[in-house]
Structure formats: structure tokens, C-alpha cells
């Protein structure tokens, strides 16, 4: 028995070495099996905990009806637009705060305070201002993404060694060029980390706003299902959310972070 287990494990290790994707998929197999077993055994009422097969079926029907792709698209588009706007605002602000001591003294407490208020606490007043609309959701997302990006950019800017900036200046670079060719690349790893954190928070904020504002999107799908008492669709929504973020984070953001760290990260190491 033990030999068999060891053999299986060595096979698994070899496979994961060859195809790294295996490592992020195989661990889910026993989990799903366990879930199916618990659901089959009827420990909890079926209405409270449906099995994986039912969820897969409902995935099929929702895709067939076109609801799931549409909602998914809505959510992703909102996230992308919000993140893009947040980054576009956040990087210049972060550079300003990082470079200028006076601006930092003025803005840092304000930034910390507004970050502490948290995106979701803005929802009630946003609903008064903009109603149950797309503007409300976009505002929340931009707000969420903005702060981690600003704070991390400022941190990154300050971590660029003074010598490098002076060296570039001595070689005749204009201040704008110093920002573009020294400061921004130097703080890029931090900026990406900020973006990753911001998107992590933004993702959750998006779900919450979709639940509360409720017009479309995965969050709405889940809460609508909750109103109808359909656990199957809630679970489906959760799995879709998890998978999507897993893919975005693991296959897009983390590699970018690693790449910028390797390419430009030396600056922070001094």
C-alpha cells in the first residue's frame, strides 16, 4: 500500500514538473469527490447542498440560455474599465506623492483615511447620487483600485535610489525623462503589486455592488438565485468567480509581477 502511494506521488511530482498546470488542477479532484460524497450521503438536505453534477447541469443550461456568458461579460467589462480608470488616476497621483515631500505630507493622511472608509461604505450615498446605475458600480470599483495603486506607486517611487535619479540628471536627462525612464520603470514592480492588490479588493467590491445594485453580473446572478432559493446557481456563481479570478491572478497578474520583478526589480535591491 505504502509503495503504491509513493509510486503515485512520484508520478505526480514528475508530471507537475513537466506540466505545471497539473498542479493547479489535480488537488481539486479529491475535493469535488468529497463534495459529491457528502451531497450523495444526504447529510444535509438536498436543497441546502446540491451535488457537483447538478451544478454542472445548471452550468450547461445557463450557458445554453446565454445568461451566464452575458453576466460574465458584464462583470469582467466593469472590472476592466474600473481597473483601467483606477490605474490611470492612481499612477500619476502616486508619483506625485512619492516625489514631492510636501504633497506627501498633505495627502498621505487623507489617502489613508479614505482608504480606511472602504469602497462599500460609499454605496449608500452613491445610490442617492447616481441611483442604481452603472455609474455607481464604476465609482466603487475605481475607488477600490485607486488606493492600493497610489500607495504602492508612492512606495515604489521612494524606493528608487537617489543616485540613479541624480546620475540620469547629470547625464542631461530632463525631469520628465527622469520620471519616464528612471522612476516609472524603477517603481513598476510595486505598481504591479498595487494593481494586483487593488484588483483583489475590486473583485470583491464588484460582487458586493452587484448584489446590492443588482442589475446584472455574476454577483447579481448569485443573489437572484438566493431570492429564488436555488443553491445550485449560487454555488455555480461562486465557482465561476473563483475560477475566473484564479485564472486572471495566476496566469496574467502573477507572471507580469514576476516578469517586472526580474526585469526592473534590481533597482529596489540597491
Amino acid at each position, binding site marked *: 500500500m505504502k509503495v503504491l502511494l509513493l509510486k503515485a506521488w512520484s508520478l505526480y511530482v514528475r508530471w507537475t514538473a513537466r506540466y505545471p498546470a497539473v498542479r493547479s488542477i489535480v*488537488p481539486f479532484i479529491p475535493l469535488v469527490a468529497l463534495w459529491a460524497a457528502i451531497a450523495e450521503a444526504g447529510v444535509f438536505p438536498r436543497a441546502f447542498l446540491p451535488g457537483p453534477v447538478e451544478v454542472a447541469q445548471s452550468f450547461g443550461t445557463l450557458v445554453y440560455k446565454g445568461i451566464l456568458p452575458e453576466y460574465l461579460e458584464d462583470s469582467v467589462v466593469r472590472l476592466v474599465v474600473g481597473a483601467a480608470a483606477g490605474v490611470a488616476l492612481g499612477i500619476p497621483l502616486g508619483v506625485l506623492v512619492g516625489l514631492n515631500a510636501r504633497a506627501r505630507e498633505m495627502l498621505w*493622511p*487623507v489617502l489613508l483615511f479614505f482608504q480606511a472608509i*472602504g469602497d462599500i*461604505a460609499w454605496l449608500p450615498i452613491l445610490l442617492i447620487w447616481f441611483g442604481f446605475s452603472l455609474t455607481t458600480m464604476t465609482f466603487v470599483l475605481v475607488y477600490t483600485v485607486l488606493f492600493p495603486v497610489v500607495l504602492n506607486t508612492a512606495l515604489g517611487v521612494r524606493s528608487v535610489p*537617489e543616485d540613479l535619479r541624480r546620475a540620469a540628471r547629470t547625464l542631461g536627462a530632463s525631469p520628465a525623462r527622469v520620471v519616464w525612464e528612471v522612476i516609472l520603470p524603477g517603481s513598476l514592480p510595486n505598481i504591479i503589486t498595487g494593481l494586483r492588490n487593488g484588483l483583489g479588493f475590486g473583485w470583491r467590491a464588484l460582487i458586493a455592488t452587484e448584489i*446590492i445594485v443588482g442589475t446584472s453580473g455574476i454577483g447579481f446572478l448569485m443573489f437572484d438565485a438566493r431570492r429564488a432559493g436555488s*443553491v445550485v446557481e449560487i454555488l455555480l456563481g461562486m465557482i465561476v468567480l473563483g475560477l475566473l479570478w484564479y485564472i486572471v491572478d495566476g496566469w496574467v497578474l502573477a507572471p507580469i509581477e514576476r516578469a517586472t520583478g526580474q526585469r526592473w526589480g534590481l533597482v529596489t535591491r540597491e
Partner: protein
Amino acid sequence: MTFRENADGVGQVSLQQAGRGRPRSRRPGGAGGGRGVPGIEMGDSVATAAMPRFPRLWAALKFVAPLLFLVLLWEVVVKAFGVEPRIFPSVEAVAGAGLETMQDGTLVRHIGASLWRVAVGTSLAIAVSVPLGVAMGLSPAVSIFLTPLFRFFSVLAGIAWIPIATLWFGYGFGAITFVIFNAVFFVVAYNTLLGVSRIPMALRQAAASLGAGGWAMLTQVILPGALPNIVTGVRTGLGFAWRGLIAAEMIATNVGLGYMLFLARDFYRTEVIVFGMIVIGILWLLIDRLLLAPLERATIERWGMVDRA
């Protein structure tokens, strides 16, 4: 982790600036530079350093001043443009709302309910997730196998569980505490797992060859080594939990800060909403800056060497 430096935002601003040498302060001579040059740095920082008697108080003042300026600006703008109270309240209205909710005890009730939920959910989550994380992290094989699972669930943690939590536990205390538990649990378990699996095998073997038994190994090598990660996990998890709390209270309860805000929305009482937002901001700043950040810094200073080994 990336927020570590802002952690000292309040206390050490002035110190850091002196040490770091802002653009205009020339760096004195090659080898001896950097640290031991108080004489030279003094002249430079006299303007900002006219406060060595109460450095903390001064730092706090510096922190509060921009916020006070913001309040002033808000008052002036609201007065000058005659902003309608239904759009945005004036400072007095917010202060009035604050006073009113304090006097009739609703504020205390809402804050109490929110904090109680956070306390219960968080302590339950920590009590379960740390032992679990340690147990899983001890074997490299197990931790490699389980890492993707925990990453998946820590992504889902918190808000995404609100719909199903309300269905399982009904609206109220149970569902919200579950959401908080959930947000903290997976993040802390994942971070503990990471922390334990990153302790260099050499350290564990060294301790073992010096005769450390299971218990000594756990309390003197594993837990201290993983502590920085655990505390960072708690801080991140609580950050998610706090947002989750506000969201969940808007959706699924009849008491708590989130509910206070959402109820005020029904009556277009912007002054109560803004007051609630300020309370939420201040509460989180207090929790994060006075409780979590110092804790994190202390554990990293005390036990953080393991990372560098």
C-alpha cells in the same frame, strides 16, 4: 506585506525623512555617511525638527492637519455653493447627526453589534486556521498539494459567500459572523501554510539534532518562524472581513454600521450616511494602525529573521 512601510506612516515620518536624505541634503563623505551624522543633518531638518520634545504629538498633529483642512474645505464648499442637504450635508448637520445618534444610544448599539461580530468571527477563524495551517505546512508534500486549493478559496473568501450564508444561516448574526469567519479563515490558513513551509529545513533539522522533541519544535521553531506570516495573514484577512462586514450588514441584518448607513439611505438622510462613513473610517484606522500594524512590525522585528535565512 507591501503596505508595511505605510505602517509607520504616523509615528516615524520625521525620522525617516531625516535619515533618507531628501534631494537637497547632500550626502556627507563616502564611507562614514548614512547614519552617524547628526550634526550635519541637524541644520537641514531644524525646520521640521523644532519638536523633539513631543515627537509623537507632533507627528499626530501633522497627520490630523490635512484632515482638518479637508473638513474646512468641505464646509466652505457646501456653504459657498449652497449644496442641497439631500446631495451632501454640511459639517454641522453631520455633527448634529453624530450627536443625536450618540445621545439616543443607536450609535453605540450599531458599533457594538458590528465589533462583536468581527471579534467572534475573527477569533473563531484564528483558533481554527492556525493549527490547521501548521499541520498542513509541516509536510512539504501536503503543502504543495493543498496550496492551490487554499489559493482558490482565499480568492472566494468573504463577500462571495454572502448569498449562500444567508440561505444557510438565515438573515442576522449567524450569516454575518460566518462571512467574517470565512474571510479570515482561508487567508490566515493559507498564510500559515506558507509561513511554515518556508521555514528552512536546515533550521528544523538543526533543532531536531540538538534534541528538540515535537512540542519544543512546534513552540520554538515552527510557530515563531511562521508568526510574521500569520500576523500578516490576520491583517489582510481582517481587511477583507471588514469590507465583507459592511456589505453583509447592508444586505442581511437589522443592526450594525452597514445597516445604519443603508437605512439612512431610505430616508435620504445624507448626514447620517456621511457620519457613518466617518465612523467606519476611523474605526478601521484605529484597528489597523493601533492594533494590527504595530503587532505586525513587532513580530517581524522579533522573529522575521527566518525569512532572510
